[in-house]
């Protein structure tokens, strides 16, 4: 086999359908790369090598017999270890659940399997999707393949690393304040947080029910769209999905932007103690690029980023403590220091605080909706600064700096992070593309067009 690096899902699907690529070879390629590179990157907590080989042979056989299920058939995909997999250990990154083996698949896993995807393994995540990067955790943080000394983002860290390093073709993460988009940005990949309720949370460890969003992560926006198309849709086991249906077809993605109106949100990143000059220059360059592709680009102002951040942090802290209180109280010594501190803080919030935050949330949703009256989508910076050294991360940093991914958890809007270049030290930069709820296809279409027009998808980390 000539392949040295996994292709995109779209390319692999095309070759599998044409009979020029076998799922068996694809799985072997990923397993070989995991064996070679993951001891240094630590992105996988568990690899289903034998099972994946067996499933790849079954998929190849099915496809040979003319029973191709779709574009994910035979594609190796890995999952954040907060997503339940029947008969496969699922730890939520914690010693508390080190031996936990669920009896059922999460709804999205069942959908991936029905689409023919091969579940390659379980990926490192911050403990309970919150407590990282903690050096005393059950699973040490996955390492950024662009520079192993810097933070890989989280909490879906393993997913970001595995995609960037070519250790699987697609991954599913979860995002409560940015946990899909932060590792996507720091690893130079694409990560999509769908509209709230578009993808079922059933079978996923809850961090903060009103903010949790599972979402796809891949090398390209097109691949994210392919995975989203397979996992989205109403689920009787998750009431948040009722009545939530994406507008417009996700596939095939239209790469034309003519006539699309895009607002550039500069007030999130341009100001004292906000984005670095390189971050803002990258946002401006992306806006120019999108204008050149035919979109009508204007500047738009949204409420102060701190308002969204404060609201998101208070709601998340309250709900997170409520969800995890039993084991935090009973066995606090079994969780990392980061997890303990961040979770315990939520115990000090009062009902009044939580309810006021939910009320402000509604105000912010209305203000965001009104500001977007004349645009189809908005773009803003992906992160405010490059990833810091992993050993320098402070336990409560997220209370001391505004979080540019938080507005879209709070408002439930779809938001896609795409690579928008590299900074002077060679680390990836990113922008976010967001739209009104249910307009996931617009985000992915803009991301797809942008990735096709820019050279960033041609650059991979040197391992």
């Amino acid at each position, binding site marked *: 086999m000539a392949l040295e690096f996994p292709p995109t899902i779209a390319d692999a699907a095309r070759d599998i359908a044409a009979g020029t690529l076998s799922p068996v070879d694809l799985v072997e390629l990923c397993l070989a790369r995991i064996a070679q590179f993951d001891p240094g990157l630590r992105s996988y907590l568990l690899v289903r090598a034998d099972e994946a080989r067996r499933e790849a042979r079954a998929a190849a056989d099915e496809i040979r017999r003319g029973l191709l299920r779709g574009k994910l058939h035979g594609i190796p995909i890995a999952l954040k270890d907060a997503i339940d997999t029947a008969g496969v250990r699922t730890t939520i990154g914690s010693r508390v659940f080190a031996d936990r083996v669920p009896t059922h698949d999460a709804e999205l896993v069942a959908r991936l399997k029905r689409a023919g995807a091969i579940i390659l393994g379980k990926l490192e995540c911050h403990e309970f999707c919150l407590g990282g990067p903690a050096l005393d955790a059950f699973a040490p943080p996955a390492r950024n393949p662009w520079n192993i000394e810097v933070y890989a983002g989280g909490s879906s860290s393993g997913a970001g690393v595995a995609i960037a390093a070519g250790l699987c073709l697609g991954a599913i993460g979860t995002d409560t304040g940015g946990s899909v988009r932060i590792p996507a940005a720091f690893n130079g990949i694409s990560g999509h947080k769908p509209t709230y309720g578009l993808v079922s949370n059933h079978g996923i460890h809850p961090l903060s029910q009103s903010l949790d969003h599972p979402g796809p992560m891949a090398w390209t926006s097109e691949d994210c769209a392919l995975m989203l198309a397979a996992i989205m849709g109403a689920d009787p086991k998750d009431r948040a999905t009722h009545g939530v249906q994406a507008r417009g077809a996700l596939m095939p993605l239209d790469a034309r932007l003519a006539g699309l109106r895009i607002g550039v949100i500069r007030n999130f990143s341009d100001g004292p103690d906000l984005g670095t000059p390189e971050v803002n220059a990258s946002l401006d360059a992306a806006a120019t690029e999108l204008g050149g592709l035919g979109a009508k680009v204007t500047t738009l102002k949204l409420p102060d980023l*701190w*308002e969204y*951040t*404060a*609201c998101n*942090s*208070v709601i998340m*802290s309250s709900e997170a403590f409520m969800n995890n209180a039993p084991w*935090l*109280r009973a066995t*606090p*010594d079994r969780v990392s*220091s980061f997890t*303990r*501190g961040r979770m*315990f*803080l939520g*115990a*000090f*919030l009062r009902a009044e*605080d939580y*309810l*006021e*935050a*939910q*009320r*402000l*949330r*509604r*105000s912010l949703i209305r203000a965001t909706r009104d500001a977007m009256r004349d645009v189809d989508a908005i773009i803003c910076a992906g992160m405010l600064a490059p990833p810091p050294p992993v050993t320098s991360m402070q*336990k*409560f940093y997220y*209370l*001391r700096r505004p979080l540019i991914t938080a507005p879209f958890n709070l408002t439930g809007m779809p938001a896609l992070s795409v690579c928008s270049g590299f900074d002077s030290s060679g680390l990836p930069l990113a922008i976010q593309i967001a739209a009104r709820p249910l307009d996931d296809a617009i985000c992915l279409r803009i991301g797809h067009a942008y990735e096709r027009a820019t050279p960033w998808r041609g650059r991979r980390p040197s391992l």
Partner: protein
Amino acid sequence: MPDSPLPLETFRAQAKSLGLTIAEPELLELHAAHGDLAALLQRIHAHPGAAAELWPESIVEAWEG
């Protein structure tokens, strides 16, 4: 870094009443972070108009939504 609105001893007593087991260095760290949290809460409580927002919006939403 903003101060916690709770004196340390009150904070310690509250942690105990909440059933939290915390070693002293972590308690001090948490008390400091409580000040940061209080600063976020000030933003929320001071927001004009927010108090007029209902959550949930209506009994229909709560019952049938």
